[in-house]
């Protein structure tokens, strides 16, 4: 650990300049991108609604900015190009499967080209509130062809780290109710007809999603973060792991919870 020094009563720490690392796309990528000029880091947090994603991203952002890093955030359905239309499509449930899937891919590509890649080029820490994995898992649960999805998302840049906040479906139900009045139609997978009861459907759907994530983990190598803990514990683990990404060194030992 670097030492914090006191200077005029203000804690100063040397600001770490992230080590550049070679970058790759999953497939063909985006035409005409100079991969060697992407100085920033791409950090992805994945997990179901209620897994604590937004809380953890907000904490990461505070911490990174405090450490002198500029940040920018992206997430699903946030593109200038199609976010409104995607919202409408979901509310009306009027697009069929392949169409909806390509619509989401358009949303992703728009943010990739207009926020993620320019951000990285400018040396920003790009924090992604979910990435292609959620999109793939949702489609896989709905029986779409995996090879087709892999080709589609061959445009995606390989992130510097992907954290999956793992929370059991039973816990997710509780957290969703403490946050919202009702369960969300899509997060309950109601379009799949798993059960006419939303509660049952939610549990079934979330465990199908968790299975897909486990499978994807073995392909894409996420860090699985145990989400059934306090926000502080999770946050501390994320910081250690992100710090390792920034310095290019191995992760520091946990300070207090070693030997558990």
């Amino acid at each position: 650990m670097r030492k914090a020094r006191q200077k005029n009563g203000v804690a100063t720490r040397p600001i770490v300049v992230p080590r550049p690392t070679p970058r790759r796309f999953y497939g063909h990528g985006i035409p005409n991108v100079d991969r060697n000029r992407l100085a920033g880091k791409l950090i992805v947090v994945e997990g179901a609604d209620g897994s604590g994603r937004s809380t953890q991203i907000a904490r990461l952002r505070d911490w990174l900015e405090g450490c002198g890093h500029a940040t920018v955030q992206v997430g699903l359905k946030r593109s200038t190009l199609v976010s409104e239309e995607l919202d409408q499509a979901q509310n009306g449930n009027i697009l069929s499967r392949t169409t909806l899937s390509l619509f989401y891919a358009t949303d992703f590509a728009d943010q990739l080209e207009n926020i993620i890649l320019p951000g990285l080029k400018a040396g920003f820490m790009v924090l992604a509130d979910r990435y292609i994995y959620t999109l793939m898992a949702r489609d896989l649960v709905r029986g779409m062809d995996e090879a087709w999805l892999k080709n589609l998302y061959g445009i995606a840049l390989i992130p510097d780290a992907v954290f999956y906040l793992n929370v059991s479906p039973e816990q997710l139900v509780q957290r969703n109710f403490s946050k919202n009045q009702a369960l969300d139609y899509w997060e309950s997978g109601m379009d799949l007809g798993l059960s006419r009861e939303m509660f049952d459907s939610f549990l079934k759907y979330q465990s199908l999603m968790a299975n897909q994530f486990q499978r994807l983990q073995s392909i894409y190598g996420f860090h699985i973060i145990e989400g059934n803990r306090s926000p502080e514990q999770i946050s501390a683990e994320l910081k250690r792991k992100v710090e390792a990404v920034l310095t290019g060194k191995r992760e520091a030992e946990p300070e207090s919870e070693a030997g558990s």
Partner: protein
Amino acid sequence: MAKTFAELSFPGRLIAVEGLDGSGKSTQIYLLKRWLEQQGLKVFFSEWNSSDLVKSATSKGKKRELLTPTTFSLIHATDFADRYERQLVPLLRAGYLVLCDRYIFTAFARDTVRGCPPEWVRGLYNFAAHPDLTFFFKAQLEVSLQRILDGRPQLKYFEAGMDMRLSADPYESFRIFQGRILEQYLGMSTEFNFSVIDANQPIESQQSLVRELLMARIDLSLFAAPNVKGVR
């Protein structure tokens, strides 16, 4: 190689026309439709009206010039998927002869010219079965260009390929763009088994060839419309 609708045992058949703007393909498919209708066949000309959602996104992207080659390709694939799943597949399941003015090959040509990797684009569209018959209207580049540039001098930004910065002059940009698209079409002709029609011939000669080729490939007697009282 992807399968055709016949190979996938659909009762319907899909016939597509491809070619540059101004090659006369729309005229030919219109005449084909008229003829098939007059034979009392179950025919459907797929004029695509994009769903409001996709239309709104596409027009926003075009108006504000937000589209890159990748998002241009994806948003058109979205639109195509919507058309495919909502219109084409149900019609083909219902046993129609479906006529399409442009199909996936338009996207293959256009997106590849814009710099998307051809394998990626083809992969995007591999959910779609191939046409049972594809007519490619091959005209001389100058002839097609002249027809368009004579009749409709206001070229739109993406239509003229202005996003590729080929030339600051929209007309010059359009010429270069169309020339490259033609190259792509010619390259795909054998691979996708296009029936090539010489679009420099008189309209009537082209149409008789189109009808002949269609009859040779598809048993039209299978598509007789049921005689429903009071409908015709």
